[in-house]
């Protein structure tokens, strides 16, 4: 050992303790803060409960009825499923403007396959889901291999898919009655489960199972950890041994598949198949809104997918609540705008307080 670093040996008998800091926050507020800090997805849940209570107080039993409360679930099922897809993309620091358009195209593909080509409905559904997955794969490839920004890729994809949807369907609607008569399986997810006044559809059940499944996959599998790592810092993930390309591809393909499922849910909910469904145009913004109200960071790598479900429900509660309270559609639109900003501001504030 050279003599020059003798001084460093003085460190060998160093005390190993570091400053230990206790959490000085106690009592109910303190414990709440602590809890929120550990589980940030509680924040949108609290906002959700708060808004349900708010409208419950305002509107009484009209709103607090099994009918109205399960109606909200039915109304958010499409946006909810799309938000699940959107969450995956946003967790990788992307954004997907094409989710709604892909969902609508998938409904059209399912309908066309059955009614124009005479394919059995179950196979048609599979074809629709495959188309969704394939479109996701194209976006994923452009993002991962061509290194194009997801915003651009999916902006282009949105326009392409929407136009393809109109061209392919010649803007023709397939009527609910015809589907019911000839291909009831397409409407399978519209099947109702009644418990007293409460009505659940299989679409709602699918949405909830989807969130449970994805929450598990994101938290408890290697794939989920890789999704977060890639969203956090793709270069670091690459260097520390994540197959970034595979992760991107799996995420975009899963998102495409989920969009296909959303399409199937749409057929169940509306009965008919219409290429001009509004979801194609505003489904993306609705899904993004749900995700951000759910506290998932647009910068990737942070947030829990449960938040997206709560986010979708918050919007659903406000929309129905405001309508029931007699706000006209324009005011409702404006108040939802305020809600978006307020929800994120509250989220930010709670995080700060509970930091």
């Amino acid at each position, binding site marked *: 050992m050279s003599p020059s670093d003798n001084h460093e040996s003085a460190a060998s008998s160093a005390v190993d303790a570091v400053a230990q800091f206790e959490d000085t926050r106690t009592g109910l507020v303190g414990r709440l803060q602590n809890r929120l800090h550990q589980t940030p997805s509680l924040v949108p849940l609290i906002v959700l409960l708060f808004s349900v209570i708010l409208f419950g107080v305002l509107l009484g039993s009209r709103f607090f009825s099994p009918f109205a409360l399960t109606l909200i679930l039915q109304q958010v099922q499409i946006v909810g499923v799309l938000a699940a897809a959107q969450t995956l993309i946003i967790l990788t620091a992307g954004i997907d403007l094409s989710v709604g358009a892909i969902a609508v195209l998938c409904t059209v593909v399912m309908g066309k396959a059955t009614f124009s080509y005479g394919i059995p409905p179950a196979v048609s559904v599979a074809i629709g889901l495959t188309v969704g997955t394939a479109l996701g794969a194209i976006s994923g490839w452009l993002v991962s291999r061509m290194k194009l920004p997801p915003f651009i890729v999916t902006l282009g994809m949105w326009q392409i898919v929407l136009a393809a949807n109109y061209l392919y369907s010649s*803007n023709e609607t397939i009527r609910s009655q015809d589907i019911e008569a000839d291909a009831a399986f397409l409407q399978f997810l519209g099947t109702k489960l009644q418990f007293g006044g409460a009505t659940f559809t299989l679409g709602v059940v699918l949405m909830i199972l989807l969130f449970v499944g994805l929450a598990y996959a994101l938290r408890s599998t290697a794939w989920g950890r890789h999704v977060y790592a890639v969203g956090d810092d793709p270069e670091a993930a690459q260097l520390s041994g994540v197959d970034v390309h595979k992760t991107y591809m799996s995420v975009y393909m899963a998102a495409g598949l989920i969009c296909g499922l959303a399409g199937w849910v749409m057929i169940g909910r509306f009965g008919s198949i219409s290429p001009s469904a509004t979801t194609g145009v505003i489904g993306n913004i609705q899904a993004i809104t749900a995700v951000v109200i759910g506290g998932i960071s647009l910068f990737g790598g942070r947030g829990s997918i449960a938040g997206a479900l709560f986010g979708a429900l918050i919007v659903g509660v406000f929309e129905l609540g405001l309508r029931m309270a007699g706000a006209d559609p324009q005011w409702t639109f404006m108040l939802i705008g305020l809600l978006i900003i307020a929800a994120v501001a509250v989220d930010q504030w709670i995080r700060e307080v509970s930091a």
Partner: protein
Amino acid sequence: DGHSPSACLITKTDTNPFFVKMREGAAAKAEELGITLNSYAGKVDGDHETQVQAIETCIANGADGILLTASDTSSISPVVQQARDAGLLVIALDTPLEPIDAADMTFATDNFLAGELIGKWAAATLGDEASNAKIGMLDLAISQPTVGVLRDQGFLTGFGIDIKDPSKWGDEDDPRIVGHDVTSGNEEGGRRAMENLLAIDPFINVVYTINEPAAAGAYEALRAIGRENDVLIVSVDGGCPGVQNVAEGVIGATSQQYPLLMASLGIEAIAAWAKDGTKPEATEGKNFFDTGVSLVTDQPADGVESISVAEGTDRCWG
């Protein structure tokens, strides 16, 4: 000047089946007469800007005439004037411009009349119950495009309700109106809007819808709570799926319009203009060429003229 005559068709959107059929009619007639047809459409309902750009394109392209379904009937006038100054024949289809003589001619359906017909029919069908009706209004969009306002206000007028300002919906205070909601004119919006109105008042028994896809969506919502048989749904358009829905009792009555007819007449007019400069004439006693509107229902009501579903099916457009 040697080249074959060319015409432009500019519609509000190209996603609404109504305009899709209009284009089909124009394309068929154009092919028959050997006219080159270019079609344009707004990107969304009410897209005025794209229509202006389309007219400018037609001028640049040296077209002979333009068939126009204007999104913004007054704002479009300056650029229409520009086209007419450049020697193009401009025909307003479906929707009159404001003022109506801003175009060379108008081939139109009266949307207010279309609404009025279904309003009268609904009131007559309910009879005395009309005074206790609970009405849900399913409109087009929160930007209140004119066609939506005309149909809505026509319906209310026909039903016998004071519409206050005829240029907008939502300012009425008749207690029979449960509420207005918007549908984007498709099944998706129709279902959600109906659910919202039902949440306000589950005993709605008359539903006005902007068009038949919205009506189909509303029907799904009613069916979900088992009320599909005790609600009167009325609509406007007269597309074949819509007429079939009337036949099956999904829709009580619909006001049928004739987009194919309008479009083919328009193409003929442009052909004539390109050949020898003759302009089309207006219908006797009106300042536009009325292509007509008929009420389609199998439950005719006293005092409201209507055609049968069978006849409606013969004349439907999609």
